[in-house]
């Protein structure tokens, strides 16, 4: 291909980067971070909290029914 054709295409004016470009990137990144953190909360934080809560309720039920508190850490 003749180099001058490509040179002319290369010299074709490319407009300036839009003024608010950095801000828009920042907003998009923030949106992504928010979604990622919400997903993390929904998939890991909430199940973990529910598991801890369920264990406590289970322990309370056992104590109510048996009158003794069962714990793996108990030394008796």
């Amino acid at each position: 291909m003749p180099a001058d054709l490509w040179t002319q295409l290369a010299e074709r004016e490319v407009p300036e980067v839009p003024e608010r470009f950095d801000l828009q990137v920042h907003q998009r990144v923030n949106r992504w971070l928010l979604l990622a953190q919400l997903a993390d909360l929904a998939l890991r934080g909430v199940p973990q909290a529910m598991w801890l809560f369920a264990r406590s309720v289970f322990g309370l039920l056992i104590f109510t029914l048996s009158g003794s508190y069962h714990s793996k850490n108990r030394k008796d």
Partner: protein
Amino acid sequence: MGGVATDEQLAAEAAREGSDGPAFRELLDRYRQRVWRICFRLLGNEEDASDAAQEVFVRLFTARAKFAGRSKYATWVHAMAVNVSLTIRRGRGRRLRRVAPTGQETLEQHADAGQPAQSSEAKSVDTSIDLEQMLEILSEEERAMLIMKYVEGHQFDELAEMFGLSQSACKMRVRRACEKIRQRFPDAGV
């Protein structure tokens, strides 16, 4: 960090940052212009180019921990810019991509009508537009490869990394693409 940090050092630093911190912003400063130029050349209009360039930086951010340093960071960024631009082009359809020049005869129209190409004066004015129209006959990948090679000035080893091909495959595709243009526009002096 003492002195001017390399792109690779900044990328490693950005991978440790929880959000778009100083290292990522420095990378954004360094690559903003280059990414914008590639996206604009591949997409042909500001709206799509802006969308693509923003998407490139978001992907650079989300994949910042995945940069393994096997290639230059610049090549990795350029590859991402090419991929995002190609995805957007494929998604939006060719007709919407470029504002068609009005009132200008194209070399393709001449070629279809079997007429000689435009006069030399008109030709020089419209060459860049015509060349872009010539590129439209190529596949998306061939077009991107020619632009990255001849307009952006990348070497074949960089093209190979960007397009995930071997160097010889890149050379062959570039040669075939040039041949396609020559066959379709024999009077264009290409």
